[in-house]
């Protein structure tokens, strides 16, 4: 039993990392209506950007900020240079998903010769270990959880309390109508990519901080959990992504404790299959948003 309680504790940390990542991913889907398969690789690239700063002797939390800026600018550029032009040209969804997978592969393989094949880890002081029953978490892990909660609150206030958030929701719901109402959708989309890119960068770095090591090859594993969380919650819905992250984060950690850590992502996959069979629109989405359109 104590094993499962400990796993539950780790699950909360995984949830935190996953929530930051999945909210960014699902917002990109919502606002640009495309699945950005390069998301996992941008996370890794940002994690390495933070690693570069951290390795130069800068504190990990300051490096995290650098990673966020890197992820932000990188995501913005990918959208501006690659995705947006193709969408403007009228490329179908089928083409967009292939383009984003190609982009993901290119990022990974540009990164590989630069950073190498080996796993790296941050120079960080994990702080004292806190105990609550059989849950044992380090200071850094608690800090990551705090950061995730703060970021979720920031995203919530952004979407619900600001004009920009309102414009984002309008653009996400119906871009043409939003444009006709005088919302500068292009600028809103650009801003959304900057914000989600920052989330992506933070997620990549905290994922690296939480696990002992990371490498370029970790990107695909990240992406699977993120896709599972986003689809489970209802793609395009940030609150759905938060709930999805909680479920996926806990299930992967507890199944890792019950079976074997090698099959962590298989649990996420099993949930994904169940969702796709039983409720493809996700937990929080309105019915019909995912129907196979003509």
């Amino acid at each position: 039993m104590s094993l499962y309680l400990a796993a539950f504790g780790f699950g909360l940390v995984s949830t935190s990392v996953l929530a930051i990542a999945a909210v960014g991913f699902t917002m990109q889907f919502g606002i640009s209506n495309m699945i950005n398969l390069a998301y996992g690789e941008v996370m890794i690239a940002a994690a390495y950007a933070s690693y570069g700063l951290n390795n130069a002797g800068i504190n990990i939390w300051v490096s995290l900020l650098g990673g966020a800026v890197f992820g932000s600018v990188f995501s913005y550029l990918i959208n501006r240079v690659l995705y947006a032009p193709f969408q403007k040209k009228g490329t179908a969804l089928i083409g967009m998903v292939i383009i984003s997978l190609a982009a993901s592969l290119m990022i990974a393989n540009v990164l590989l010769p630069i950073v190498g094949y080996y796993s790296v880890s941050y120079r960080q002081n994990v702080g004292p270990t806190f105990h609550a029953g059989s849950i044992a978490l380090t200071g850094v892990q608690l800090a990551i959880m705090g950061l995730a909660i703060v970021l979720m609150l920031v995203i919530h206030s952004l979407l619900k309390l600001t004009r920009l958030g309102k414009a984002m929701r309008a653009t996400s719901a119906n871009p043409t109508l939003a444009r006709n109402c005088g919302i500068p959708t292009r600028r809103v989309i650009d801003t959304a990519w900057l914000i989600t890119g920052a989330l992506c960068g933070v997620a990549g770095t905290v994922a690296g901080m939480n696990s002992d090591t990371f490498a370029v090859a970790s990107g695909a594993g990240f992406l699977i959990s993120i896709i599972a969380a986003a689809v489970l919650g209802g793609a395009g819905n940030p609150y759905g992504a938060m709930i999805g992250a909680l479920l996926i984060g806990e299930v992967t950690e507890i199944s890792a404790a019950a079976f074997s850590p090698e099959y962590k992502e298989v649990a996420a996959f099993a949930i994904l299959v169940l969702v796709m069979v039983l409720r493809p629109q996700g937990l929080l989405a309105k019915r019909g948003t995912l129907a196979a359109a003509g």
Partner: protein
Amino acid sequence: MTYYLTTLGVYAGVDIIACLALNLQFGVSGIVNFSFIVFQAAGAYTAAVLALPPDSQNGGFQHYVFGAQLPFPIPWIAAAVVGGVLSVPVGLVVLRHLRVDYQAIAMLVLSVIANLVITNARPFLNGAAGLSLVPQPLSDRFNAYSPTYLWAYVAVTFVCCALVFFVSQRIVKSPYGRTLRAMREHELAVTALGKNPVVLKMTIFVVGGVIAGLSGAILVGFITIWAPSTWLYPETLILFAAVIVGGRGNNWGALFGAALVPVGFEEATRYLPQFGPPGLVPALQWVAIGLLIIGFLWFRPKGVLPEKPGRFAAATPVVGARLTKEPGVS
């Protein structure tokens, strides 16, 4: 030299078969099968374990199921069957309710997970190390290393190519193929005409799976090894690049693309001098594949040999004639 040429020939044949199958699914029907390589792998594993002796032999250094040691045509046929049978559950989950990009990510995830499971579950198919010493077809009767055998294998591969090409052409030109293309262009319209898109997609998905399984069997019979590292998900993207470059929906295009991208590309870069740190050239190869896909989708989305637009003999002249007869129209 013989070995090099025959290997090249078999790889070319297998890539052509795979590209034809992917063209049926992706080019003709618009199914983004990002897990294509899984079906090829399933065929290869099936053919391998059915041809291999029980795993206690060879000193028991590798673990796998079956080990049936069946004679030649059975493993290949079984591989094709398994490729098709595996397509059924995957298709039923993925192809029914989901939007096209959801289908794509579902299959991408499947591809990653299948590889992960096979890599870690060692007793099933020998895990990350993979299967080796797979007996070549009919190797009990012929010397599998003689040049005659190698060239005969290439010939058989190309006979299979021709067969698959013939079948693909028949499918594309049949009324069924026309319906598939119509579904790709406008699914709702086809549904309104009384066609069931799920049945249409499932059928072509299973056909593609059968061909993919066969291609895996042909490959593993020649190279005699098969491991998870040979079917990672990016491999599927090479086939996509081939179909996109060649021309989506056109079987000749798939043929051309297969000869150009997987075969030409790998071979051309083999002769490049190795420069930079180890691993730089393969990494750049992947970058180039990505650029090739993005470049073609931007500049020439129809590919080198575009799909021929359908011509309907009766319709055009009638409309034209009516327009010229009525003076008020212009």
